[in-house]
């Protein structure tokens, strides 16, 4: 039962993470391959502040703010590149941030990571706090879902889609495309920061190994599998991917082969991602009906 609660909580955190990426990838057409950086920045900011004795809520808000600020700082130069080159720039940004966590020991304790990150006081630590943490996550996911849905259904969201479909047309009709894209990345990064800080306070221990390319691919898979540019797609994608990941634990695997499981899992994710992009780019929940 507790394990099921755990899976739900992780799924919800990934749902927020995927929704934030979907705003950039699905609605604006920006291939951000370094999105995990903002998840990590949110996690570390929030963790460090709460370890320094500040309230968890303040830590989470600061985590979102710092992630958003980092998003803008990345976006301004990176968005001068188009298409694939933006993807490469963000990919390297993700790596840079991971190396920062790894090497700036005075701040992040390096590979040791940060243990003992507390949860909000009303939730409580350990297994007893799980139901309340689930409620907390559900409320936040709902809030994020509604905020992003409202935003993408507004003229702002419509302008993002115009940019996704044809950037030149957007410019020909008076849209400051760079500014729109910067704002999309900013909002996406803030929400990824929220997901990251939730992760830190839930797992209570973070290290640079939690914020690698694998996590980027995982969240990318959530969005692509679920359905780019839809409201429910990333949520569905997150649940499918996280449940799949956890179910694998119950597959009887001979002890000798245990060490192969993780790499094979990565291969399966990559393969599913490629197959979906080729064969069903619209995902499980398509944005448009025929």
């Amino acid at each position, binding site marked *: 039962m507790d394990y099921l609660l755990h899976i739900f909580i992780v799924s919800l955190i990934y749902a927020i993470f995927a929704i934030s990426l979907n705003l950039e990838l699905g609605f604006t057409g920006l291939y951000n391959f370094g999105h995990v950086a903002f998840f990590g920045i949110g996690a570390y900011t929030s963790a460090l502040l709460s370890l320094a004795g500040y309230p968890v809520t303040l830590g989470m808000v600061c985590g979102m703010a710092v992630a958003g600020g980092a998003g803008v700082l990345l976006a301004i130069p990176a968005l001068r590149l188009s298409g694939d080159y933006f993807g490469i720039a963000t990919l390297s940004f993700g790596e840079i941030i991971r190396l920062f966590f790894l090497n700036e020991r005075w701040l992040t304790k390096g590979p040791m990571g940060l243990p003992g990150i507390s949860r909000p006081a009303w939730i409580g630590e350990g297994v007893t706090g799980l139901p309340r943490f689930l409620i907390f996550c559900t409320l936040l996911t709902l809030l994020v879902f509604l905020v992003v849905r*409202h*935003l993408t259904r*507004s*003229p*702002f969201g*419509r*302008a993002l*889609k*115009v940019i996704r*479909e*044809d950037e*030149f*047309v*957007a*410019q*020909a*009709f*008076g*849209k*400051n*495309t760079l500014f*729109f894209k910067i*704002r999309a990345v900013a*909002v996406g990064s803030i929400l990824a920061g929220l997901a990251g800080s939730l992760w830190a306070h839930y797992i209570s221990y973070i290290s640079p190994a939690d914020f690698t390319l694998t996590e980027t691919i995982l969240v990318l898979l959530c969005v692509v599998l679920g359905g780019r540019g839809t409201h429910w797609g990333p949520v569905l994608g997150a649940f499918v991917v996280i449940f799949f990941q956890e179910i694998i634990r119950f597959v009887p695997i001979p002890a000798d082969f245990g060490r192969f499981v993780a790499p094979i899992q990565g291969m399966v994710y990559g393969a599913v991602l490629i197959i979906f992009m080729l064969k069903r780019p619209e995902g499980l929940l398509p*944005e*448009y009906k025929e």
Partner: protein
Amino acid sequence: MLKIDNVTKSFGGLMAVHDVTFQLDDAGIAGLVGPNGSGKTTLFHLITGFYKLDRGIIHFNDKRISGLAPYVISRMGLVRTFQQTRVLPFLSALENLMAASPRQTGERISSVFFQPRRVKLEERKNRQKAMQILELLKLKPFDQHLAGRLSFGQQKLLELGRVLMAKPKMILLDEPTAGINPTLIRQLVDVIRELARRGIQVFMIEHNMPLVAEICEKVFVMDSGSLIFSGTPSETRQNPRVIEAYLGSEDHVA
């Protein structure tokens, strides 16, 4: 209205537009003609800021527009279409039009959350205007269709409708009738004339010479990057340089 002075643009060794100077004043509908590769589309790209010019100045309503970003020029009321149809395929016909409306309050994130009533009201007006335009274009039954699913001719009409949404003072049309059937051409021409009647200056690249003669009050002719002639359609058809540019000189023919 539009004043182009000594505009030059080259790509590597190719002089695409060479020292072009002309002025366009409230002429209703004006045409830009010339053989393929004579620099017409490049000139449009230069006017609308999609290309940077090498030399020269462009003024629109006495304001210098050369060097400004495309979206700034568009907001000043100088709006263009593209040579290839470029509707937004995965947005509905209605959304295609609504998105083209300039300076929407709801494009600011803060307004989306803190001025919802104002945004809603503006959206309603915007939708009404878009529906009126769809009616004018006889596209009203297709308002919820994805633009990418419309026929080629309907997409051309939709592009024109999008320009109308942008409240332009002047529009640049890049081959609006290319590749569409005669019936739709008539419909398109009606719309273009309607625009001119509403006081919008139309400047169009067009290869269909009878059509140019029919609707344009003034014609500019380009050849090999230079402006070689400007005048009324009948003057244009009789001008020896224009004939030479289109048919080749006698030396070559011989």
